[in-house]
């Protein structure tokens, strides 16, 4: 076994910048460097580049160009969507519906609004990691102004019933609740699921560049025409006054190109990662006992696998894999003697041991079957070693002698 092999299986955390994207970005840094707000030629060139990027990002999600607002990433998109709607809704209501398994950037904004007097209903997800439409129906109140449920979960990849939630929202709007909006965090789903905002029926949708082979520091928020949103960056007219500040032109151009490629290569990328993921899971189930696959097996992203390994803890496994050149992630953290098992895995009803022993493997377009074979080999070895070390599956002989 070649211990120096490097395998990156953390594409849900971030992706490398595609070389084609990097080439366009580099040209933009040195040539298309104008300020898009400037009226001279340099500025207009930059403006045209931003407009092209906007068309490409809009096309990725089936939106109109003027419904895309560029921001710094997924976290800002989620903040702008939720705070923006909340702050634009005084007098309409102070209630938000969200799920128990949202990304920390959505959880954090909701927690912060709750401290300011907003009421927040967090929908459960049950064992399959998917919210139930009847729970959404029961949660909507006359004073609800926003539902924020992710399109696909970042840890387990489960796909949420956004289309069905949107139908509920429409029913309420038709009945007179005009200021009820639906936001979905599509940061993990973009480029991995076919997205069309018209078919989905959402009013706001968050995107991030670095999850689809663009650099960090750029993202976008889709805002359906007619949605009232209070901006946060004020003092500039950029992005139709929804996000003031000189545009991150190189980042936006890179994001646009990455979105164009994601759409153009969608079928082959999905088929490739889906095949690798399924092969990986079959090999793991074949080689390693006492594993639990987390999240619904059908309704989930095609590139991601979340597995709990009984009797061992995720961080120890993660570092053991890292020592063998394999990069994965865990949703649990242990610090200062306090355990923070993954809230997502806990929301599935798993016990602490399974929540602590969960690992996310996420595949990308550059992985190969040889990568998977190598990972399965070192994973089986690391799991066996850690289990040999674990007291959880061995009876204590003299525990209560004192």
């Amino acid at each position, binding site marked *: 076994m070649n211990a120096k092999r490097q395998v990156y299986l953390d594409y849900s955390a971030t992706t490398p910048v595609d070389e084609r994207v990097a080439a366009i970005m580099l040209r933009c840094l040195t040539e298309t460097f104008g300020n898009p707000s400037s009226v001279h030629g340099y500025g207009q060139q930059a403006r045209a580049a931003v407009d092209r990027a906007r068309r490409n990002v809009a096309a990725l999600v089936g939106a109109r160009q003027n419904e895309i607002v560029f921001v710094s990433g997924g976290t800002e998109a989620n903040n702008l969507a939720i705070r923006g709607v909340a702050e634009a809704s005084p007098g309409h209501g102070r209630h938000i519906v969200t799920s128990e398994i949202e990304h920390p950037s959505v959880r954090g904004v909701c927690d912060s609004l709750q401290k300011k007097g907003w009421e927040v209903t967090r929908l459960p997800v049950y064992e399959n990691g998917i919210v139930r439409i009847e729970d959404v129906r029961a949660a909507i109140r006359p004073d609800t102004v926003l539902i924020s449920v992710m399109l696909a979960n970042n840890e387990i990849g489960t796909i949420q019933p956004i289309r069905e939630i949107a139908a509920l929202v429409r029913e309420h709007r038709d009945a007179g609740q005009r200021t009820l909006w639906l936001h979905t965090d599509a940061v993990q789903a973009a480029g991995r699921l076919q997205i069309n905002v018209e078919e989905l029926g959402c009013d706001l949708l968050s995107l991030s560049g670095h999850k689809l082979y663009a650099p960090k520091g750029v993202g976008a928020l889709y805002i359906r025409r007619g949605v009232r949103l209070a901006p946060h960056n004020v003092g500039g007219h950029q992005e139709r006054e929804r996000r003031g500040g000189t545009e991150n032109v190189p980042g936006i151009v890179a994001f646009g190109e990455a979105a164009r490629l994601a759409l153009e290569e969608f079928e082959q990328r999905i088929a490739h990662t889906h095949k690798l993921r399924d092969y990986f899971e079959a090999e793991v189930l074949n080689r390693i006992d006492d594993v639990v696959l987390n999240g619904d097996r059908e309704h989930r992203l095609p590139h991601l696998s979340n597995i709990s390994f009984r009797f061992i803890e995720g961080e120890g496994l993660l570092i053991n894999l890292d020592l063998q050149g394999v990069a994965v992630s865990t949703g649990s953290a*242990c610090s200062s003697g306090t355990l923070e098992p993954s809230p997502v895995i806990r929301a599935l009803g798993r016990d602490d041991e399974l929540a602590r022993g969960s690992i996310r493997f996420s595949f990308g377009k550059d992985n190969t079957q040889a990568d998977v074979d190598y990972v399965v080999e070192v994973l089986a070895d690391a799991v066996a070693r850690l289990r040999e070390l674990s007291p959880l599956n061995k009876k204590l002989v003299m525990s209560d002698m*004192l």
Partner: protein
Amino acid sequence: MYSVTFKDHLAHPRNVGEIPDATVVAEETNPICGDRLRLSLKINDGNIETAKYLAYGCPPTLVAGSMLTQMIIGMSVEDALAITRSELIESVGGLPSRKHHAASLALEALATALRMSDKL
């Protein structure tokens, strides 16, 4: 983040397992984070002849057990009891402060085991 020594002990933990004819076996659990460490010792004439351990928890807990067993084999009970948390942390090449509890857990298991052996 972690030292070469730390990574070596994580990849190749020393003295793993249980001693079939141990003089004492002690297990300590961190009630908050759930980390566990089980230590078995073979003590003869006031000296620790053999030590083995099992552990569940974050990497520092796994490494602290490995390093501690390596340190105490051949030591007198008295000297083993004198090992401090700082010494154990230093011997693994340092630990972030938020992970110091791992060293404490290993030393608690040792103190419990030695107290038990004293009563035998």
